[in-house]
């Protein structure tokens, strides 16, 4: 078969020559077909090839390193405990901690304790969401509101919410209200600020495009502004959860009372009172695991999904 084609302008089908400059009329259909084919070719050439990272690679590059690091730390800890650097009541090994937790488990209280904290955290976070979102929208969109409370709101974010605990106890006594007040004061500012940041970073082009499409007023907020601000909003939520959880632990640690159900903070405080260092470390690990677990199971996938859908996240 012919492998190369050389154009030598001979024969009736040769291009150029002294024929008309534009394609002969009537060749319209052929021209349109040609254009469609050309376009299909361009589309195929320019479309980035989608690729998935194989599961084995994800395991090797993403899962293996942190697992190895945790195992290393545990091993070093166990060694230090066995070398008796400190008396056991000050430095129990990881196995002692595990046993202390197992003991709580057999007493049947630990799940209830975790649930108490998680449900408080979730409820407080939901309330913060319901307050922080409209608040953030107001600050982002209404100049007067922004001038009035914008600085206070971002300032509040740097105030450790544990500072509110004494005030809340004076207001509400040792009740759930105290705990929720502290959680709200911790989480609302970061959720609102996240939304403000997200709205501020919305490219003006989207807003103009939305307006020409007829998305004005509330429809503009719903169809353009909020979805465009979603990445910033989500990172605000993630931070808001971290703040909720921290504030909750601070509140539970300080507000200990028989009237309040036992949460992880109270478990920790009780263990301290009993000088049970294994249980203290066990409670700390539980607090850490629950906090990280919710972030990894709820917020990380949500954020990844949103960013990936917009092509803002490199695969792999």
């Amino acid at each position, binding site marked *: 078969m012919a492998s190369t084609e050389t154009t030598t302008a001979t024969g009736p089908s040769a291009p150029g020559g002294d024929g008309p400059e534009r394609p002969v009329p009537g060749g319209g259909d052929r021209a349109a077909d040609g254009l*469609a084919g050309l376009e299909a070719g*361009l589309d195929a050439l320019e479309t980035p090839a989608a690729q998935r990272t194989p599961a084995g690679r994800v395991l090797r590059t993403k899962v293996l390193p942190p697992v190895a690091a945790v195992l290393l730390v545990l091993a070093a800890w166990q060694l230090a405990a066995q070398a008796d650097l400190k008396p056991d009541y000050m430095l129990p090994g990881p196995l002692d901690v595990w046993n202390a937790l197992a003991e709580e488990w057999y007493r049947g209280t630990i799940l209830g304790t975790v649930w108490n904290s998680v449900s408080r955290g979730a409820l407080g976070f939901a309330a913060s969401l319901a307050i922080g979102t409209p608040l953030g929208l107001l600050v982002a969109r209404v100049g007067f509101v922004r001038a009035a409370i914008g600085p206070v709101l971002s300032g509040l974010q740097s105030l450790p919410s544990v500072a509110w605990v004494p005030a809340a106890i004076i207001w509400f006594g040792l009740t759930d209200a105290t705990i929720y007040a502290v959680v709200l004061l911790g989480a609302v500012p970061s959720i609102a600020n996240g939304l403000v940041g997200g709205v501020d970073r919305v490219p003006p082009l989207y807003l103009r*495009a939305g307006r020409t499409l007829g998305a004005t007023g509330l429809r503009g907020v719903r169809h353009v502004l909020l979805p465009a601000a979603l990445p910033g909003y989500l990172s605000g939520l993630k931070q808001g959860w971290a703040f909720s959880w921290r504030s909750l632990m601070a509140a539970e640690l300080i507000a200990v009372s028989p009237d309040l159900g036992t949460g992880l903070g109270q478990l920790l405080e009780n263990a301290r009172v009993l000088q049970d260092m294994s249980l203290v470390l066990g409670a700390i690990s539980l607090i850490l695991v629950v906090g990280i677990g919710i972030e990894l199971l709820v917020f990380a996938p949500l954020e990844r999904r949103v960013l990936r859908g*917009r092509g803002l996240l490199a695969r792999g």
Partner: protein
Amino acid sequence: MATALTDNPTANDAANDAANDAANGADAGTPAVRLSHVSKSFGRPGHGQTVLDDISLDVAPGEFVCLLGASGCGKSTLLNLVAGLDAPSSGEIRVAGDRRPALMFQEHALFPWLTAGKNVELALRLRGVPRGERREEAERLLELVRLRGAYGKRVHELSGGMRQRVAMARALAQKSSVLLMDEPFAALDAITRDVLHEELTRIWQATGDVSVLFVTHNVREAVRLAQRVVLLSSRPGRIARQWQVGIPQPRRIEDAAVADLSVEITEQLRGEIRRHGQH
């Protein structure tokens, strides 16, 4: 040659005023877009920079007009005024019909949180098309720009040329009688741009009575596409000269007739630019 000159904007004014006096009906003589003595300045009145000065321009229903000018002469400002995104400092702009004009930007401006199809459907929804009809209509529009398979694709999965075609489908979804385009192909490579010129011409001819006001700084592009080329001067932006382009479609950017007229217009454009270097 195939070109007629309308050298004098004042002649145009007289025609405008005459038409303004006519009854305000939907007769064929009503322009799709009418700018009467439009000026625009930014900054404090009196002290600010006058970007557009006394622009009067009519675009007839179904007409394809290219607005040509050097960078910074106020082309985008003018389109924003017509689109209603900004208000003129003086003068009046009228757009026929009750729909706002559709606007396409240099950047595709598609919403990255929606698929290509949903971008088009959002435009339909905002136009008031009932839910049940949106999907089918969006697919028809994507088919029109030959992107039938792109319905479920995310914006970042599409090439630059495909994005602009989806943006075109979204603009068409507004079913406005006026399509404003602000250098929509300027960021594309020459091969893709050439194909999209052909595509735009085809779609404009297929839709029949859509008026296009297409902004560009590319003389050849203007001559390739337009029925009429309007040259804007810079600082302040005024209509310097207009050309009727009589070359029949389908044109190609390589056509000798396109090249000849481009040379003539480029000379004029350079003259406009040179004036600014003299003082």
